C-alpha cells in the first residue's frame, strides 16, 4: 500500500512539475502546494504542509531568469514528503533530504533542456517539408519531463528507504530537529528583507 501511494505521489509530482516550465505556470508546482497535497494523500497533511512551505521559503531566493535552472521545488517537496511518509524518516531529516533532492534536480533539468536543442534541426526540416506538427514535439517533451520527475522522486524515495535501515540513524535527529526549527526564520528573513529592499527603491 505504501509503495502504491509512493508511486501515485511521484506520478502526481511529475504532472504538477510540468506546470513549472512546460505548461501553464500557474504555480501549481510550488512546494507550498505540493507538500500539503502529497502529505494529505500519504496521511500526514500537516507535516507535508510544513515541509512544503519551508522549502518554498528557502527556494524563493532563486529566480528563473535568463535560462537559469533554479532548484526544483516540486522534486524537493515530493522527495521530502515521501522520505517522511513512505520511508519513515523524521520530518526534520526529510526536509533536508528534500532540499538536497530539489537542488540535485537542476543538472537533470539542464540536460533535458540541452537535449531539446537538437530538435530544432528536425523541426525545421518538418516545417520545410510542410509536415510540421508542433503538438507532437510538445507531447514528447512533456512526457519525457513527466517521466524524469516521476522516476527521480521514486529514486529518492528508495534511497530514503535504504537510509532508514542505517543503524542508530536516530542519533542524527536531535541535530536535524534543532536545525529544522530555525528554518522558518531563515526563510522569513529572506522574504522580509527582499520586500524591504524593494519598497525602499525609488524607481
Amino acid at each position, binding site marked *: 500500500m505504501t509503495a502504491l501511494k509512493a508511486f501515485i505521489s511521484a506520478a502526481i509530482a511529475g504532472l504538477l512539475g510540468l506546470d513549472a*516550465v*512546460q505548461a501553464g*505556470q*500557474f*504555480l501549481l508546482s*510550488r512546494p*507550498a502546494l505540493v507538500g*500539503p497535497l502529497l502529505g*494529505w494523500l500519504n496521511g500526514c*497533511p*500537516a507535516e507535508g*504542509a*510544513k515541509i*512544503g*512551505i*519551508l522549502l*518554498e521559503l*528557502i527556494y*524563493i*531566493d532563486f*529566480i*528563473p531568469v535568463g*535560462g537559469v535552472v533554479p532548484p526544483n521545488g516540486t522534486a524537493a517537496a515530493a522527495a521530502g514528503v515521501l522520505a517522511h511518509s513512505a520511508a519513515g524518516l523524521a520530518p*526534520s531529516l526529510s*526536509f533536508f533530504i528534500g*532540499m538536497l533532492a530539489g537542488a540535485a534536480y537542476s543538472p537533470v533539468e539542464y540536460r533535458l*533542456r*540541452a537535449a531539446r*536543442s537538437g*530538435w530544432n534541426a528536425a523541426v*525545421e526540416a518538418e*516545417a*520545410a517539408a*510542410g509536415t*510540421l506538427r*508542433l503538438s507532437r*514535439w*510538445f507531447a514528447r*517533451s512533456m512526457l519525457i519531463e513527466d517521466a524524469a520527475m516521476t522516476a527521480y522522486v521514486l529514486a529518492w524515495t528508495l534511497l530514503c528507504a535504504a537510509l532508514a535501515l542505517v543503524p542508530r540513524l536516530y542519533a542524527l535527529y*536531535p*541535530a536535524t*530537529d*534543532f*536545525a*529544522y*526549527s*530555525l528554518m*522558518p*526564520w*531563515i526563510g*522569513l*528573513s*529572506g*522574504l*522580509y528583507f*527582499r520586500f*524591504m529592499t*524593494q*519598497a525602499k527603491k525609488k*524607481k
Partner: protein
Amino acid sequence: MTEEAQKECMKAAPAGSAPLRAVFLRSFFIQAAWNYERYQNLGFCFALEPVLRRLYPDQAACRDALSRHLQIVNTQPYMASFVLGNVARIETNAVAAGSGGACLKSLPGVKQALASSFAAIGDRIFWGRLKPMTALVCLLVWAAGGFYGWLYPGMAQPASVALLLAGPLAGIALYSAASVCVRWKGLAAGYGCGGSTNCALDSFNWPRLIKALSAAGFLMSLALAFIAFGTLAGMACASCRPADAALKLGLPLAAIGLQRLWRALDRSVFSAVGIILAASVLLFTVLGFKPLGLYL
C-alpha cells in the same frame, strides 16, 4: 523601408481579424519545448500557428511563415503575449498590404526589442514580487486560520486539510488571476498597436504597478514578522525563566543574522542552511550536547 511605407504597413489590416483566442490558449505552452539553442522558439511558433495558417492558405507561404518564427526568441512567459500580439499584427498587416516581404523586414528587430523589454518588466513583476507574495498569502491564511506549525515545525499541531490547502491555493488563485489577465490584455494590446518597437509598453503603468506590489509585499511581510515574533515572545514569556526566554528569542535572531550575513557576502541561502545543519550535527550528534531549542 521609408517611414510612409511603414505607416502603410501598420494600418493595413482591420483589427479583430486574427484568431487571438487560439493564440491565447496556446501561449500557456510557450515553454513546452524550451531549449538552450533557441529558447522559446518552438512554443512561440506553436502559439502563432493559428494566425499563420489563416493568413497563408497557400502551403508554400505558410511553410515560409512557420520557418520565420522558428528563430531564437526568449522572454518572460507571461509577457510573451505582448510580443505574440504584436507579431500577429505585423503578419496580418503584411498580408493585407500585399507587400509581402517589405512589411516583414522590421519583424525580427521589433520582436527582439519587445521580447527583451517585456522580459525585464515581467521578471520584476512576476518573479521578483508576485511569486514571493503567494508564499506570504499562504502564511497569512494559515495564521488567520490558527495554524502556526510552519513557524514551529517541531511542534505537533493538528490542522484541517481544508485550511492547509486553502493557504497555497489562495496565493495561487491571486497569482494566476493576475498572470492570466496580463496574458490576455497583453495579447490584445500587442495586436492593437503591432508594428512598432515600443508597442504596448505603455499599456500598463509598470513603474506604478511595481511600486504598489513592492509596498504591498512589504506590508504583508511586516504583518507576518509581527505575527511570528509576537507568538514567539508569547511562548518565550510563558516559560517564565529569563534565560529560557532569552534563548528562545535569541536563536531565531541569530538565524536571521546568519541569513543577512550570507546575503551580504553574496552567498546562496543553501550555505546558511548548511552551516546551521553542520553545526547542529557537530554539537548535538558528534559531541553529544543536549539540544537547546525553541520548543524541542
